């Protein structure tokens, strides 16, 4: 059984019109152009400058950071000392590994559950499909608050387990609606044909539907991965044992609350004399995975987010 058209075409991004100035539109006044360029430069700088300062400071030598009053825009003599210092098997290393583990396991489980339900709800003949869809949509309107959820989590014995970071946020109704919308756009004839040839639902899902929805699955996967990597409050609420803390919580302790970084520094002196480059190294570590994945998925945002938004 082969599917005869390329996945690329069917999931193409919405066509963006060629941005050439139409004939009827006169060129804008030079002053307007200058203002526009200025506005864009300011917007871009507001986002990129803080990131640059953080990365530069983390890469700068201790003396340079101190001489500069605590931060650096461009390190003259970049070094990885700060990273070496926080990644020597102490608290930061452990927290990074915990976050990575939670992100990988959580994203996998979330995607499996979301894809399964989204596919089932995208088929017209699913038993009780309509009521179940309504059941899910209603959760977008009314979410149980912090305390009832807390009671369920503790009631299930998940307190102080890594599962408490995953299970309470396993499926996101919005992501589910996005995927369902994508699956619904796949021509029904294709699925019927596969059924006639004897393919089961799982086979149809993995061989036809998923290959045709790569972009949407990638975007939803990214949303889940970001959710787990950035997860902060779940850990505050459910993890009493600080040995289980993910990177975001460690970051809060060291950078926002300014506690000394314990157990990861070779000597206490370094911590006192160069806190900034080390703090910024932790910030960069907490940002790194996102910066790495971002460029690859960024082009899918528009199509991924839109189908969900329009359909719901």
């Amino acid at each position, binding site marked *: 059984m082969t599917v005869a058209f390329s996945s690329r075409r069917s999931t193409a991004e919405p066509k*963006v019109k*060629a*941005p050439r100035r*139409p004939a*009827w539109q006169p060129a804008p006044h030079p002053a307007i152009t200058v203002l*526009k360029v200025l*506005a*864009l430069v300011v*917007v*871009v700088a*507001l*986002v990129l400058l*803080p990131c640059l*300062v*953080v990365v530069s400071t983390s890469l700068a030598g201790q003396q340079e950071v101190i001489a500069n009053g*605590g*931060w650096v825009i461009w390190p003259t003599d970049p070094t990885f000392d700060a990273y070496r210092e926080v990644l020597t098997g102490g608290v930061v290393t452990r927290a990074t590994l915990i976050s990575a583990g939670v992100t990988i396991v959580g994203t996998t489980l979330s995607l*499996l559950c*979301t894809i399964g*339900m989204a596919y*089932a*709800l995208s088929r017209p003949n699913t*038993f009780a499909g309509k009521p*179940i869809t309504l*059941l*899910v949509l209603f*959760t977008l*309107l*009314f979410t*149980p*608050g*912090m*305390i009832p*959820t*807390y*009671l*369920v989590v503790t009631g299930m014995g998940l307190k102080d387990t890594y599962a408490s970071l995953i299970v309470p946020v*396993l*499926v996101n109704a919005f992501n*589910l609606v996005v995927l369902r919308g994508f699956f619904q756009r796949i021509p029904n004839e294709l699925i019927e044909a596969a059924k006639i040839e004897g393919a089961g*639902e799982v086979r149809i*899902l993995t061989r036809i539907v998923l290959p045709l929805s790569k972009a949407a699955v990638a975007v939803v996967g990214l949303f889940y991965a970001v959710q787990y990597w*950035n997860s*902060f409050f779940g850990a*505050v609420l459910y993890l009493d044992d600080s040995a289980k803390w993910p990177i*975001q*919580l460690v*970051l809060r302790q060291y*950078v*926002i609350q300014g506690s000394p970084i314990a157990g990861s520094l070779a000597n206490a002196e370094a911590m006192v004399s160069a806190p900034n480059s080390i*703090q910024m190294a932790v*910030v960069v570590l*907490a*940002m790194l995975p996102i910066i790495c994945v971002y*460029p690859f998925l*960024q082009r899918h*945002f528009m199509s991924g*987010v*839109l189908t969900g*938004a329009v359909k719901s």
Partner: protein
Amino acid sequence: MLALLAPALVYFLVFHYGALFGYGIAFQDYVPFLGVSGSDWVGFGNFEKLFTDPAMWHAALNTLELSALQLIFFFPAPIALAMLLHSITAAPVRKFVQSVVYLPHFISWVIVVALFQQFLSSTGVLNGWLGDAGLGTIDVIANPDAFKPLMVAQIIWKDCGWGTIIFLAALYNVDEQLYESAAIDGAGWARRTWHVTLPAIRPLIVLLFILKLGDILSVGFEQILLQRDSVGPEAGEVLDTFVYYTGVLGGDWGYASAVGLIKGILGAGLVILANKLAHRLGEEGLYR
């Protein structure tokens, strides 16, 4: 098919519908040690307390103030940025700016707060500059009066760019011929914006406004929790943090969940109401 559906369905039933039973403790003087079955039922006692509790009203007022500020300053920001981006004719420039402005959405609140502290705290970059220039110092981070504007600035920094996605898509869907005929009829830039662009994205603006109204009692929980301590509850307490501090940390579980329940019901009610209002105004709204 059922096997595909089941895991997620179980999740929704347990954590969204099952959890609703947890609101039962809103009618109890709940003691975790005794559990739901062992704790005393107090009827509407927790709800009565809520009306006369100045700390709760203070948190509610802070929440509404922040919401109002967000509606005034944060809500229109993505619309303005989207119109600016839409007006750029050079595709590579526009795509680059778009990629840059989406990015902060994916950065965690912990990092965003850390960045703002790095720049604005009493030992931060800004005060370094001011000090060098001999202008003294201003502490933005620990100043209760600056708390609310700071919260709004942070949310604009983080999510304004992300908010443009949906408006940009709507703007690209506007029929180019409408602009052309308007221009031929002598409409300048301002008139084209008023008569073509804005009507085209109006349903979307209404829709997002409804969603925002439903969220009027939630103003960014993680963001505020991270910074409440630096200014104290007087300026920094909102309903969500109130529930966390009185319930989870303060041990007054029943009362805190009563506050949470009221907040949830009001939120859902507001969405339904705003949706009705949208229909009255002849818009599609969120649902029919």
